[in-house]
C-alpha cells in the first residue's frame, strides 16, 4: 500500500524550485525571536543608559516612626534626649558551661548577683531570660568581648533627662513606650502635635530639637535657694517662678518637693505635683496689687487719695482687720507699703462690685490659664459676689489662683499693661506684643511700678531690696484654711517682685508653704521674714546671669558700707 502511495506524492510536487515545506512557520518563529531579542536589548539599553534610582531604602526609613525631638533650654543646653541602650539577655538552652558564664559575667558586670544569675541560666528548657536591662556602651563591649555563646543584646531606645531633677516639672517625662505623660513631653504628643510635626524633617529622617524658654542656670539657682529657704524655715513645700515680663516666657519654674524624671518607678506622690500650675493657692496680699491697679485704672483713687483705716471695717457681721495695724488715715502709698486690709477693702468698695468683677474678668482671673503644661487649675473665686466678697477678695481672701496665673497678671500690671499668656517655648517680644491684651493704661502701670519699688525700698518687702538691682515687690501672707476655718498657725507666704524697676524685665515669684518662725526671725513667720529674703538671694544670683547691670546711687553705697560693717562686727 505504501509503495503505491509514494509515487503519488512525487507527482504532486511542482516542477520549479519549490518553497521548503513549513517555510512560513520558520519565518514566523524568526520574527518572534527577533522581536524578543529586540525587546530585551531595548530594555537593557534603557536600564543601563537611564538607570532608575532605587527608592526602597528611602521608603523603609520613611515608614519607621520619626524620632522624638530632643528638648533644649533657651541657651541650647540639652534637657531631654533619646539614647540607644542595649539590654543583655541569655538563651539558657544554648549555654554550654554555666559556671564559666556566671563567673565571666559577674566579673564584667559587678552589679549582677551570682546566685540569681545562676538560677536564670540553669533553666535549659527556657529560651529567653533578661539578665540586665539598659547597660552602658562600655559594659556592652566588654560582654561582647567575653564571647559567651547564648548571651546577646537587644537594642532599645530610652529617654533620658540629663539635668535630672532640675527639669522635673517643666519638661515632665514619658512612659515606657516613650509617650509623654507629664510636662512639655505631654504637650509634644498632644495639643502641641502640630508644633512637634513642624520640627520633623521626614526626608532626612531627623527631628529638630524643641527649644524651651527655660534657662537651666536660673532654674538651678531658683531650686537651690528655695530648698535652702524650705530647710531653714522648716516649710513643708515651696515654689518659685522667674518670668520675662516683656515676652511672657517662663525662665524658671520650680515646685518643691520635686522628683527625678530618670527614676525607673514613676510613682510620685501628690506632694510632688506641680504646685505652680496644677494647684490653686490664696496668695493673700499679693492680690492687693490687682486691686490697686483697678482703682487707679477706673480713676477712683490716685496716689494722693486717703482712706480711713482707724477702725476695723465692719460688713454685716464680719470684721476686717489689719495685720500691721496703723490706726490712722492712710494715703494710698501707705496702704500699699503697710499692706492694710482695711484700706484696700475700702478702695475696692469705692470701685464697686460690678466694676470689680469686670476688672477681674478683664485680667483673666475668672478663666483657667492654659499654657503648654498639661496640668492647669481653674481659679477659685467667691461663689456669690456680695459686698463682703468684694471687700475680702480685694486683699486676696477667698480668692485662690494658680501661682503662675498670679505671676502673669502682675507681669501684665508692671510691663505697661500688656497681659500675655505665659509660655514655656521661645517667644520674641514682637510675637508677645501681637498676642498681648491691654488690661490697664500705661500710666497705671507706671504708678504700680512706683508702688512696687517703694514697697521694696522701705516697706514689707524691704528685705528683697538687693542693692543695685532696683527690686520692687509685694509680699503676701495668707492663713491656710484648715477644716473650713482660717488657721492662725499655718500660713502660706509669698513674694512677687520684679527688677530692675526703672524698666522691669524679670518677675520673681516665691512661695513657701507653712514656714515656721525661727530665732533669727524673732518669732515671726510672715512673708517679709522668709519668702522675701529667699527672693533676694534668688535675685542676687540670677541678675548677673540675665545680664542686668547693677547701678548704685550715693544712698545705695552708704547702705553697702553699713552692711559691710555689720558683717565684720
Amino acid at each position, binding site marked *: 500500500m505504501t509503495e503505491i502511495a509514494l509515487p503519488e506524492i512525487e507527482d504532486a510536487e511542482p516542477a520549479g524550485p519549490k518553497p521548503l515545506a513549513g517555510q512560513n512557520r520558520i519565518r514566523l518563529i524568526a520574527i518572534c525571536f527577533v522581536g524578543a531579542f529586540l525587546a530585551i536589548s531595548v530594555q537593557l539599553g534603557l536600564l543601563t543608559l537611564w538607570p532608575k534610582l532605587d527608592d526602597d531604602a528611602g521608603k523603609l526609613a520613611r515608614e519607621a516612626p520619626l524620632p522624638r525631638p530632643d528638648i533644649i533650654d533657651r541657651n541650647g*543646653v*540639652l*534637657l531631654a*534626649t*533619646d*539614647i*540607644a541602650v542595649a539590654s543583655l539577655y541569655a538563651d539558657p538552652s544554648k549555654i554550654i558551661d554555666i559556671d564559666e558564664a556566671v563567673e565571666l559575667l559577674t566579673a564584667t558586670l559587678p552589679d549582677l548577683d551570682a546566685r540569681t544569675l545562676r538560677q536564670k541560666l540553669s533553666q535549659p528548657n527556657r529560651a529567653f531570660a533578661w539578665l540586665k536591662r539598659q547597660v552602658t*556602651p562600655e559594659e556592652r563591649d566588654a560582654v561582647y568581648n567575653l564571647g559567651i555563646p547564648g548571651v546577646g543584646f537587644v537594642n532599645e531606645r530610652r529617654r*533620658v533627662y*540629663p*539635668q*535630672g531633677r*532640675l527639669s522635673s516639672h517643666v519638661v515632665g517625662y514619658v512612659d515606657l513606650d516613650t509617650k509623654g505623660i507629664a510636662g512639655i513631653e505631654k504637650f509634644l504628643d498632644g495639643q502641641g502635635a502640630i508644633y512637634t510635626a513642624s520640627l520633623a524633617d521626614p526626608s532626612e529622617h531627623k527631628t529638630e530639637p524643641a527649644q524651651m524658654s527655660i534657662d*537651666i*542656670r536660673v*532654674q*538651678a*539657682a531658683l*531650686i*537651690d535657694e528655695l530648698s535652702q529657704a524650705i530647710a531653714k524655715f522648716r516649710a513643708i513645700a515651696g515654689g518659685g517662678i522667674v518670668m520675662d515680663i516683656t515676652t511672657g516666657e517662663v525662665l524658671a519654674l520650680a515646685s518643691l518637693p520635686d522628683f527625678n524624671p530618670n527614676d525607673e518607678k514613676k510613682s510620685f506622690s501628690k506632694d510632688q505635683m506641680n504646685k505652680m500650675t496644677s494647684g490653686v493657692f490664696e496668695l493673700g496680699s499679693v492680690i492687693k496689687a490687682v486691686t490697686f491697679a483697678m482703682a487707679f485704672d477706673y480713676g477712683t483713687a490716685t496716689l494722693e487719695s486717703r482712706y480711713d483705716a482707724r477702725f476695723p471695717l465692719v460688713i454685716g457681721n464680719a470684721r476686717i482687720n489689719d495685720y500691721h495695724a496703723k490706726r490712722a488715715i492712710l494715703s494710698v502709698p501707705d496702704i500699699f507699703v503697710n499692706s492694710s486690709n482695711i484700706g484696700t477693702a475700702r478702695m475696692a468698695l469705692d470701685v464697686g462690685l460690678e466694676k470689680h468683677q469686670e476688672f477681674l474678668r478683664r485680667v483673666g482671673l475668672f478663666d483657667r490659664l492654659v499654657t503648654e503644661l498639661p496640668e492647669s487649675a481653674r481659679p477659685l473665686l467667691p461663689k456669690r459676689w456680695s459686698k463682703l466678697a468684694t471687700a475680702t477678695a480685694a486683699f486676696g481672701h477667698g480668692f485662690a489662683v494658680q501661682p503662675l496665673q498670679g505671676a502673669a497678671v502682675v507681669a501684665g500690671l508692671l510691663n505697661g499693661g500688656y497681659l500675655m499668656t505665659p509660655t514655656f517655648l521661645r517667644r520674641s517680644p514682637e510675637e508677645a506684643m501681637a498676642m498681648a491684651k491691654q488690661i490697664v493704661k500705661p500710666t497705671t502701670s507706671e504708678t504700680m511700678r512706683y508702688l512696687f519699688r517703694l514697697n521694696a525700698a522701705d516697706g514689707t518687702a524691704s528685705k528683697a531690696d*538687693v*542693692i*543695685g*538691682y532696683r527690686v520692687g515687690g509685694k509680699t503676701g501672707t495668707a492663713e491656710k484654711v484648715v477644716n473650713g476655718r482660717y488657721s492662725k498657725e499655718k500660713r502660706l507666704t509669698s513674694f512677687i517682685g520684679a527688677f530692675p524697676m526703672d524698666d522691669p524685665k524679670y518677675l520673681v515669684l516665691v512661695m513657701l508653704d507653712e514656714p515656721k518662725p525661727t530665732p533669727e526671725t524673732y518669732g515671726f513667720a510672715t512673708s517679709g521674714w522668709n519668702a522675701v529674703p529667699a527672693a533676694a538671694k534668688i535675685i*542676687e*544670683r540670677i*541678675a*548677673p546671669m540675665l545680664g542686668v*547691670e*547693677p547701678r*548704685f546711687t550715693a544712698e545705695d553705697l552708704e547702705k*553697702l558700707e553699713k552692711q559691710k560693717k555689720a558683717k565684720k562686727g
Partner: protein
Amino acid sequence: MHKFLNAILVLVALVSGFVLYSLEHTTRGLEREVARLERETAREQESIKFLNAEWSSLTRPDRLKALATQHLGVQPLEASQIVTPEELAARVPAEPVIKLEADGHDPIGAIIEKMQ
C-alpha cells in the same frame, strides 16, 4: 571572512563578559562600603547623642556649684563686685607704674623671644 568575524565576536563576548563581571564586582564592593559607612555614621550619631547627654549631665549647674564650693571656695557673685568699664578706666594710671623695659628687665618679652 566568516571565521575572522566569528573570532572577533567571540573575543568581544569574552571581553564584555569580563568587563561586566569586574564592574559588578566593584559595585558590590562599593555597596558594602556604603553600608559599612552608613552603619558607622549611625553609630557615631548614637555616640554623639550619648556624649551630649553625658556632657549635659556633667555640666549640670547644681553639680558644678557643689564642685565649685568644694574645690574652689567660690561664692555667689554680689552686685557690689560688678564694676563697669568706666569705673575701671578711672583706675588705670596714665603711665605704667613699673617700667620693666627701662630697667632692661622684661620677663614676658623674654618668654616671647624664647618661643620664637
